[in-house]
């Protein structure tokens, strides 16, 4: 599948603006959501090709956002890559249980993130 639209969900400005600048440079259309509700509303309305999702975000955490998207017919097929500082195995398991397609632990370099994104692209 061809990935064009990417929704980046993170409340940390230095993180999401860096990702946005780097991904935009590579040709992706990058949309930003800084909390769980914004993430859901943008995901339902924009129908992105991929979501980079942080767990510890205001209003509705990433686990909930993931569950909601995966339980909706219109959004359940959108790949969700979780990007979180929570690195305990049960925390990872919880994320995957919630429906995430991939769970990446911070700190991670941009080239590694890009590699994962491109994995979906090729698949």
């Amino acid at each position, binding site marked *: 599948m061809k990935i064009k639209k990417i929704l980046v969900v993170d409340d*940390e400005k*230095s*993180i999401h603006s*860096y990702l946005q600048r780097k991904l935009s440079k590579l040709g992706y259309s990058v949309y930003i959501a800084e909390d769980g509700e914004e993430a859901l509303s943008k995901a339902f309305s924009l129908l992105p090709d991929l979501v980079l999702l942080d767990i*510890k975000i205001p209003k509705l955490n990433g686990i909930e956002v993931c569950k909601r998207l995966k339980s909706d017919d219109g959004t359940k097929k959108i790949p969700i890559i979780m990007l979180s*500082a*929570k*690195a*305990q195995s049960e925390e990872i398991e919880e994320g995957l249980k919630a429906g995430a397609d991939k769970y990446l*632990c*911070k*700190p*991670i*370099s*941009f080239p590694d993130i890009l590699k994962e994104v491109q994995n979906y692209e090729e698949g």
Partner: protein
Amino acid sequence: MENNKNRHDEIERRRLQEYIFNLEEKEEMAEDLAIEHEHLKHTQELLNAILSATTHGMCLIKKDAFIWCNKGLTDIFGWEHDELVGRTIEILFPEKDEHARINTLVYRELSETGNTTFDYDFVHKNGERIACLVTGRPLDESDVSRGFIFSFTDFSKRKRAEEALKKTRDELEERVKERTKELHSINKQLNLELTERKRAQESLRKSEDKYRLLYEESKKAEEVYRSLIHSSADAIIIYDMEGIPNYISPSFTLIFGWTMDEVEGKPIPFLPESEKATTMKIINDLIENETPYHGYETKRFSKDGRLLDVSISASRYSDHEGKPAGMLVVIRDISERKQLEAQFQQAQKMEAIATLAGGVAHEFNNALMGIMGNIELLKMDLPEDERRDKYFEAMKGSGHRMSRLTDQLLAYAQGGKYQPKNLKVDDFVIETLPILQHDLNPEVRVETHFPKDVSYIKADHAQMQMVLSAILANSNEAIEDEGLVRITAENKDVDEDFTKQHPGLKPGTYVCLTIEDDGKGMDEETKGGIFEPFFTTKFQGRGMGMAAVYGIVKNHDGWIFVDSELGKGTTVRIYLPAISAESKEQGAKPVKQPEIELNTGEGTILMIEDEDVVIEVTQAMLEMLGYRVMSAKTGKEAIRIAETFDGRIDLALLDIKLPDMEGGKVYPVIMKARPNLKVIVFSGYSIEGPARKILNAGAQDFIQKPFSLATLSEKLKEVLEGK
């Protein structure tokens, strides 16, 4: 405790994440800077290359001194880069003052407008002047203290080139001027030639017009000729030099029958063998000597084999180069004219013969008068005797035969129309046939057929008998064994067309008497001579028959035609003028036969006659009849007697031909002297002619010589007794 540791780990991870991203960003910026530096370096190299490559001189001047200059500037002025940098620009000016003057102007302009442009002759390192276009502007507009960039464009080469160009142009102009002058003169010459040519063209055009006019005229003329040739009644043939026809006119086809298609490419087969030699001689003469022929009369065949009389005119014609091209031949069909000519000649011949015959008959009659009269007188003197009568009858028979011959001669001479009476042709034939049939061969049968309404004619009974007799005699001759003669008569209206073909015949109503036989017929030659006196085919014969017939018919204003062909019999048609119904009864009395008994009488008779033979015999006859006779041998003598004789004269016998004057002249004179005188004209000529005139003038009667005693006694008695 565990939770705290986890939270700490989480916070640590977050901090590290921000750090990593920050680091990545700085690395990226360093990479970007390096790229930009590389780019700048590249740009600088490019600029240096451009500045070195350009032939424009570039320099940065600060406080009037060279800070930097490019290769272009050192090339223009001959100074090395290092020789210039650090030195003042004065080095490029010829004089110190000039440097100051230009500097003032340039920097004033730079301060006022921000840039400057001027040209000036700078000085090369070797002292040569270099013309340059200079532009200048501050290096940094916001800070003029950083110096000014000047650009020098060396146009001394261009200037030299321009000067050379100008020189060349001037030379060219000079040459153009010269050339123009030459051209002007040539032009003048050309104009002259052009005028001359125009004049020539004009005259050519005029001549063309003339020739066109001539052409049109000749075309018109050709059309006229063509239509003339086309409409000519004469046949026109245009031959080539070999005698092959190139053209025949419509009249040719009309006259001869051949069309152009039939004679194209070959000689016309109309030349009879008999005409060949003469014709070839004429043609050779025409071709070789160009001798034209006019009205050459000859004969030619028509397509259907008729032999036509033609008159040929021929001339040779030439083509436009004057070379003989062929012959123009005009042929006139003169068959009809020839026929008329032949008829005319025939008529003239007949006329001449008639005159001769008349003369002969006159003499003959006078002589016969002597014989016949004296025979009668002699018979009276001798005593009656059987032998005497036998001799006398034989002599009288011969005399009558001779007398009939002179009658025929006179009839032929058209002078014998003694007593024209109204006659019905059918009755006449029916009455006459029994008398004539005695002379015919018993094997010859005569049939008559007459319609009821055959008109009357005015004719002499005796002459008509002669006509019928002569024609029947010929038919009798023509029928060798047994045969048939058919006589018919019918009324015919003769119109103009018919008279044109038969000159002498006038339009009107005629009675046509036709006598046809089925005898052996005649050939052309016999037919042609049939009306000539003394012409005969018989071994023995008088040959006057048909000539007399001709004379009689003509004398009766009629016309005679003979159709005959060998083996096919002969048809004679005699046209005699019919007379109208009113006049036909008049005088239609039977012809009176002379009586045999003699009527004696008394009285004085003046005989005016010059022939002694006639005088003697007539005087004897008159005295025998009891008359007293005076005679005069000339007109003058007769007149003298009439005027001076002291006694009665009862009657004058007047001859027409007297030695000193005509009877016609004598008559009025003697009548003046003796108005009661009775006159009988007697003549060896026929009644027609001078005799008729005297009768018309008042004379009582006419006696044809020779006359018998009986005729004389009868006439005298009639006249003297006024019967």
